[in-house]
């Protein structure tokens, strides 16, 4: 039953007018739930006019907007980014998609729930007590870490995700920074992108990734100053044009429709765990295939990500706030592209209290290669 049937309407014997004696239609005690933490706002209007805002300066309207922003502020902290042409993008994923596929319209906001849950499911938490301060880590310990069989195997597999987890102060960041400094200097062909996921919400995670990815990979490339190939002088457009000249890209490029479906699928992924994995797999492989394999065919590629995903099964407000500040509270992740050749010379140590686990492509991602779902021709 709809409410519009109650609207005043003309009858055969006359017409209705709203000019009878005034009453309080819905008094405060009825309009409020009196919940703990509920915000109760008095509107100096009657029941009919309370949602008819005269202008954007209307005090109630301003209150609504402000409160809505408060609800949404955890979803994204980045207002916009600019590409090389000065174009502003409020959604960093759109920028990335546009960079990879060309102009893309009608892409809706990406849902966050499923992605976050899947990322959580990827993390293997094996906590051990911290008994080493990070300052006590020595180079020999790093070498010990990188000589571990599971890490070597992971490197030689050339794909997959290696999760490095451990308590605060156990040395995850030191290992990541050591990698960044030494792998880049030792192997000029190595492209290293480091980024921080500083929130447990997906949009921030994607934003952080895209921002770092675009800035470091497509623009500045300053994290690997010794690398050759002159890629550091290319701008985004040059790189996009380069990608489009690669035969595999021309034949297999993702269409706008596919990207839209991809995002839609991500939005719906929260309902079906298998699909979540499928979509994250697609994301990871999208980057790997589009960038690593096709653009930088001869470039070794390492993504270092600092994750903070709010792994607790029960996340309350306090935890969210704490986690958004302590971005490196629990775990660091290393994302690896093609195999590395020089790590034996540099690598490194794992302090005894840092737990780690190697995930091979078959274990983690299910398949070795990614094939876009709509490209069967």
């Amino acid at each position: 039953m709809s409410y519009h049937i109650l609207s005043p309407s003309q009858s055969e014997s006359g017409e209705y007018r709203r000019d009878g004696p005034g009453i309080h239609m819905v008094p405060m005690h009825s309009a409020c739930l009196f919940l703990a933490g509920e915000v109760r706002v008095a509107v100096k209007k009657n029941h009919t006019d309370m949602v008819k805002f005269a202008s954007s300066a209307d005090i109630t309207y301003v209150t609504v907007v402000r409160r809505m922003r408060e609800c949404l502020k955890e979803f994204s902290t980045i207002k916009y980014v600019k590409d090389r042409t000065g174009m502003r993008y409020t959604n960093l994923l759109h920028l990335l998609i546009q960079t990879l596929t060309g102009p893309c319209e009608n892409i809706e906001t990406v849902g966050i729930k499923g992605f976050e849950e899947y990322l959580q499911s990827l993390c293997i938490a094996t906590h051990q007590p911290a008994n080493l301060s990070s300052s006590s880590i020595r180079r020999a310990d790093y070498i010990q870490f990188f000589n571990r069989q599971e890490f070597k195997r992971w490197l030689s597999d050339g794909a997959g995700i290696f999760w490095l987890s451990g308590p605060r102060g156990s040395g995850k960041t030191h290992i990541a920074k050591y990698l960044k400094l030494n792998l880049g200097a030792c192997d000029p062909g190595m492209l290293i992108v480091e980024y921080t996921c500083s929130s447990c919400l997906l949009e921030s995670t994607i934003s952080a990734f895209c921002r770092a990815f675009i800035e470091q990979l497509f623009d500045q490339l300053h994290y690997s100053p010794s690398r050759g190939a002159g890629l550091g002088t290319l701008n985004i457009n040059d790189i996009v044009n380069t990608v489009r000249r690669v035969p595999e890209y021309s034949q297999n490029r993702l269409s706008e429709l596919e990207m839209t479906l991809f995002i839609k699928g991500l939005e719906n992924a929260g309902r079906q765990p298998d699909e979540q994995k499928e979509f994250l797999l697609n994301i990871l492989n999208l980057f790997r295939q589009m960038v690593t394999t096709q653009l930088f065919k001869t470039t070794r590629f390492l993504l270092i990500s600092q994750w903070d995903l709010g792994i607790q099964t029960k996340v309350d407000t306090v935890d969210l706030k704490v986690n958004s500040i302590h971005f490196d509270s629990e775990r660091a992740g290393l994302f690896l592209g093609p195999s590395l050749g020089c790590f034996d010379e540099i690598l490194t140590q794992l302090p005894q209290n840092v737990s780690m686990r190697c995930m091979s492509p078959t274990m983690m991602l299910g398949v070795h290669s990614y094939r876009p779902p709509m490209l069967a021709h």
Partner: protein
Amino acid sequence: MEANRNPIYQWLLDSIRGLFLFGTPHLGLQIAELKAMLDPDQGPWDQKMNLLNQLTEGSEFLTNQKEEMLHLWVNIERAVTVVSFYETEKTPTIRKVITT
């Protein structure tokens, strides 16, 4: 509340970050003048009257709904902002003007 009862809508419930309620009659509203508008000769009178009775003060329907809402609220673990707007002015009632 439907999402709470039906698991296939759980994702919808999980996505809620805020509730904005504008003059929502959790405990009912004044319906006397609306009742007076109902014309037995026009449309599904019983249906309309039934809806009005559900919205009246002290309605069992609203009481149950509010109870369910409060129960739901207690069980939501994450932060959900609830903003309730309430009117402070009187609303002119509707009356029939006989035209000749």
